[in-house]
């Protein structure tokens, strides 16, 4: 894993942590990672060496080069255009980082001591260079999104290397298969798991000063997450409509939020407030153009809350269609129609929310997720490990 820690907020990082913790209930799990915490610079922040995190052993390796965003942007532009030689494409993965050659050396020397080695996110250094070193026991969770990185030429051969592939959604599987264009190793589709939601605290919502009805956005407030478009659409709708309800945005902001009475930006909220916000929302809006799995969407359905999602993201649209748990939009007019339909027709909104909940019940309870994953890992034809792993610092 490129970075690891309870204090790290991130989709694949969080997924890795919860899966590792669940696997550790029945297996010995070592997390091989770096000392980086910040995903922009990969600055060394955690101490190198071996430590314990609950039932997990964590083995951290130092990063030898911080990421230069400017240089990385330059090489990305070149590589994403296509036609660059293999050496330049490899350099893209090195510059994306976090470059930790010690981690690769450890994998090369000790990889055979593990039964299975799971790699998260193809785009990072440790996965791109690590998978080939332990290919026969490597299982890759690509966490692929429809962004330009998936088109890098070297990936065609790369995706054939691991012993198995684990996708988060059928759309991700289709994406990787489409771009690799050749037979791939055995795979399965496993998302992440959810527990039954806790009883929502009424006091928590009152403490924020927010009253129903409201539209909820939950997560990092960032242009890359489609928030600039969401804010543009919402402020326009709020001006044009007499039926506008507030938009509540809960999450750290990486961009300016317009001063508008009907936009309530709460910043980072604690888990109790988060659950209360989810439980009481009229609907959740997810404007992200790129996702490999939207946990927020599943969490909303866990509370029977319908969703309005960006149709340009195939994963979000696919999840909504499979679950019959909401509506989707491609432009402002569809955004407004979808929003007003969900706000006006309470019975329909309730039915969509309940249908989303049934979908979570069928596919995303931990027991189901872990059974599917463990079965897949067990059935993979990989060589037996040679000795018990004893990581040393």
């Amino acid at each position, binding site marked *: 894993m490129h970075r690891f820690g309870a204090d790290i907020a991130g989709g694949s990082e969080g997924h890795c942590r919860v899966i590792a913790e669940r696997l550790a209930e029945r297996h010995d799990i070592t997390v091989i990672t770096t000392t980086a915490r910040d995903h922009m610079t990969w600055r060394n922040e955690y101490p190198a060496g071996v430590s314990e995190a609950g039932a997990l052993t964590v083995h951290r390796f130092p990063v030898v080069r911080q990421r230069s965003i400017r240089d990385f942007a330059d090489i990305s532009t070149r590589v994403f255009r296509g036609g660059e030689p293999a050496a330049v494409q490899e350099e893209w993965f090195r510059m994306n980082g976090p470059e930790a050659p010690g981690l690769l050396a450890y994998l090369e020397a000790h990889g055979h001591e593990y039964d299975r080695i799971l790699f998260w996110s193809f785009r990072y250094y440790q996965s791109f260079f690590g998978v080939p070193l332990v290919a026969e026991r490597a299982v890759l969770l690509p966490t692929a999104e429809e962004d330009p990185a998936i088109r890098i030429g070297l990936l065609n051969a790369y995706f054939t290397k691991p012993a198995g592939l684990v996708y988060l959604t059928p759309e991700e599987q289709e994406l990787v298969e489409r771009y690799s264009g050749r037979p791939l190793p055995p795979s399965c589709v496993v998302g992440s798991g959810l527990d039954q939601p806790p009883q929502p605290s009424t006091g928590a919502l009152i403490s924020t000063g927010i009253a129903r009805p409201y539209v909820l956005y939950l997560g990092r407030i960032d242009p890359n997450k489609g928030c600039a478009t969401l804010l543009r659409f919402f402020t326009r709708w709020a001006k044009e409509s007499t039926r506008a309800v507030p938009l509540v945005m809960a999450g750290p902001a990486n961009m300016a939020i317009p001063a508008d009475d009907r936009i309530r930006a709460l910043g980072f909220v604690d888990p109790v407030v988060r659950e209360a916000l989810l439980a009481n929302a009229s609907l959740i809006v997810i404007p992200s153009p790129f996702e490999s799995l939207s946990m927020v969407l599943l969490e909303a359905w866990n509370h029977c809350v319908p969703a309005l999602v960006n149709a340009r993201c195939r994963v979000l649209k696919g999840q909504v*269609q499979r679950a019959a748990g909401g*509506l989707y939009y491609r432009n402002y007019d569809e955004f407004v129609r979808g929003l007003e339909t969900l706000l006006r027709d309470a019975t*329909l909104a309730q039915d969509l929310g309940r249908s989303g909940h049934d979908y979570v019940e069928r596919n995303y309870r931990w027991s189901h997720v872990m059974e599917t994953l463990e079965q897949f890992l067990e059935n993979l034809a990989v060589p037996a490990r040679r000795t018990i792993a004893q990581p040393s610092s």
Partner: protein
Amino acid sequence: MADQAGRPNVARLMREIEDQVRQQRRTRLLARGAPDEYRDAEIFAIVEDVLHRAVDQRDLEALLIPELLDADEDWELQLPLRFESHRRTTGGLILFVKKRILRPLMHWLYEYSLENFRRQRRVNRLLFASIEELALENAKLKQDIAELKDGGIAERTGRQGHA
């Protein structure tokens, strides 16, 4: 409005929303002076469908026109700024000054231009995709016409043979 499993029929709901939005958009465009042909709702729906395919469904990195222009160096926007010098002796110093002094000073302008060039590149690609969709429609229509002609000729020939 439920599907066979008793769940809300999202596909039907979305079709209804899309139809309402199309009608609203057509009225708006006509009011602004769009072509008279748009008064025909069916024609408008076909035009919108072709353009939607270009905008929403086409992979902008898998287009035919860029392949055809492959031998032409000058058609594509060059996004990254590359520093090169033909001077053997002073080249290194010039590159150093450009990279380490001038570029950091002008970084804000560079970033601004780069972002706009990226947008322009996307617009170019969308236009290519739209043209390609129209060419596809045209090709399919040509095929249909050819088949109809062949069928008509065969039918006529058949009738003549029977006569």
